[in-house]
């Protein structure tokens, strides 16, 4: 350990592992440590005994739930958009070869008290019970406009400059009602609040296209994919990439104290009486608590069930978005469900998560609208955790701290944070123009 490194990475969460991999591939000498004896930090997947230890304070899960080893319960459940940024990073780094992916069965939205499949193209719009007969026809026209829209071909723009026209104006042109706008904005374009309505429509149109293209990709009922054995596989796969390119890995290192010189610049990291020198430190907020501030709080529930989420077509993996307006809240609520079909639970068992940006201190009450959609549960756990973001100036101290994971079930913010950090650390921009079509899905 008494060596000098270009970068020491602390914590093996997904963000830290992606960075560690990218930096090792760039030829930097990387030491990667974690205080835990497992990979993944806050983005690990737990088995049943670990889950019980964490939330029930004992290591005795009831035997009827099956073997502990068969569970991989994400501490940070998210699905991966088939054509999204994370997939680009996976292909760019060739990490896909360490992983098995499978399409996610369903994508649903909560609307007027009911769960509906998210229609994503003109054909589906016509069939969707989300809209009345006339609204369906208007929505169909809008979907066709979006499908045909090509940024570089003005003929497809219908005389509108979407870098200026707001989403609200675009929607007004098609005469869609607020209810339709709500599911398009939140369940298809995956906006987290309603600011997009007053922003240029191009972003929303692109997001709708991304959704539709991702959906078309793997013949699943959703635009999402998810790794077998849970998301905890992702940090491990990037850690392996880093190791393959020369990164050194140490788990179970107590303390991991970042050492500074008189001017507040990083000198190295010490653990168990040894100090490894380095030029830069990359870490999650828990390793440098003095350099972060609290920005929010996530409320979540984790449920173990013996059935799929009702009204989702028996989907063995599914996302349901509950837009803020439908609940009279400030933030959307997300339902995530996975099962033995993705090897995260023993046969017949399902793992469901309900999460949202917390607006109160009572997760059980706040999450009720989502929990009510689950039906009976075998076990349920409630939890809140704080979200942090860095407040330091990396050019002064050479510390690069990641932002905590948010409540959404998506990776957009995760990957954007990683790409920004990569640019801050190296001064380079990662070129992610990969050939998406070269990647095939895992066959069953």
């Amino acid at each position: 350990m008494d060596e000098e490194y270009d970068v020491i990475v602390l914590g093996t969460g997904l963000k830290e592992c992606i960075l560690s991999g990218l930096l090792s591939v760039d030829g930097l000498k990387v030491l990667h440590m974690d205080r835990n004896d497992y990979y993944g930090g806050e983005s690990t997947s737990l088995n049943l005994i670990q889950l019980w230890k964490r939330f029930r304070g004992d290591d005795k899960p009831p035997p009827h739930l099956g073997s502990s080893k068969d569970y991989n319960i994400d501490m940070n459940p998210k699905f991966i958009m088939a054509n999204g940024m994370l997939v680009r990073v996976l292909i760019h780094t060739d990490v896909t070869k360490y992983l098995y992916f499978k399409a996610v069965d369903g994508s649903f939205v909560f609307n007027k008290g009911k769960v509906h499949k998210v229609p994503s193209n003109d054909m589906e719009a016509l069939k969707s019970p989300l809209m009345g007969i006339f609204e369906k026809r208007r929505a169909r026209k809008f979907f066709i406009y979006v499908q045909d829209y090509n940024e570089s071909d003005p003929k497809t723009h219908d005389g509108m400059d979407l870098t200026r026209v707001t989403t609200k104006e675009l929607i007004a042109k098609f005469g869609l009602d607020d209810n339709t706008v709500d599911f398009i904005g939140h369940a298809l374009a995956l906006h987290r609040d309603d600011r997009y309505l007053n922003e240029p429509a191009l972003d929303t149109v692109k997001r709708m296209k991304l959704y539709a293209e991702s959906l078309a990709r793997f013949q699943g009922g959703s635009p999402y994919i998810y790794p077998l054995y849970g998301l905890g596989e992702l940090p491990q796969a990037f850690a392996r990439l880093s190791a393959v390119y020369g990164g050194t890995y140490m788990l179970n290192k107590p303390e991991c104290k970042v050492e500074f010189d008189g001017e507040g610049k990083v000198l190295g990291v010490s653990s168990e009486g040894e100090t490894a020198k380095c030029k830069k430190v990359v870490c999650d907020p828990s390793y440098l608590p003095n350099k972060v501030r609290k920005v929010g709080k996530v409320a979540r529930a984790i449920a173990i069930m013996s059935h799929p989420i009702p009204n989702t077509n028996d989907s063995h993996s599914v996302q349901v978005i509950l837009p803020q307006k439908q609940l009279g809240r400030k933030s959307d609520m997300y339902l995530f469900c996975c099962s033995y079909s993705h090897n995260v639970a023993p046969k017949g068992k399902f793992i469901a998560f309900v999460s949202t940006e917390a607006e109160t201190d009572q997760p059980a009450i706040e999450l009720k609208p989502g929990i009510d959609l689950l039906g009976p549960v075998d076990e349920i756990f409630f939890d809140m955790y704080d979200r942090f973001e860095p407040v330091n100036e990396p050019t002064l101290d050479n510390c690069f701290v990641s932002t905590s994971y948010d409540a959404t079930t998506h990776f957009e913010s995760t990957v954007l944070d990683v790409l920004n950090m990569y640019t801050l650390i190296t001064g380079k921009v990662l070129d992610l123009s990969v050939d998406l079509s070269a990647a095939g899905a895992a066959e069953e």
Partner: protein
Amino acid sequence: MGCGYSLPDRDSRQLGRPNSENGGGQDAKNLRVKLVLLGDSGVGKSCIVLRFVRGQFDPTSKVTVGASFLSQTIALQDSTTVKFEIWDTAGQERYAALAPLYYRGAAVAVIVYDITSPESFSKAQYWVKELQKHGSPDIVMALVGNKADLHEKREVAVQDGMDYAEKNGMFFIETSAKTADNINELFEEIAKRLPRPVIT
């Protein structure tokens, strides 16, 4: 010191590996299996892979960089072929940081020790335990005493290796990555012991 590889080949661009659970995929004639290497740092795991896949032994390269995902196909006498997807540790064993991911779906585990190092032999037991924790129950296991060319420095008796292997349901072989002794035999024996898919 160790055996070096070139960086991983980047032309197999697939989103995810085909979902072939333990025992591998395809038809009964052409098997494809994941093989993992285990054992202490320095026992010669990377050299064994490099010898098998590339027919080389290079004692001068410094660290095991880039060794990750090599494959090699062998043909058996009954005209079946076995494609080994070989996972080397990439050095993550050094500080006991091998991830569960490493063991996923492995049909074969090769546990290596150095016949000149009793310590590496007793560490083999640790790796067998790790396998029981993370590996699949019907995995084919081989115990390999490597560096057999250094017989004048031998400190682990052949009999000890055989006994230990027998007790743990593994097969045993001594190899030398340096002279190539028994390297092909090791992989051929593994291939023969693989469970064949049942044809329905």
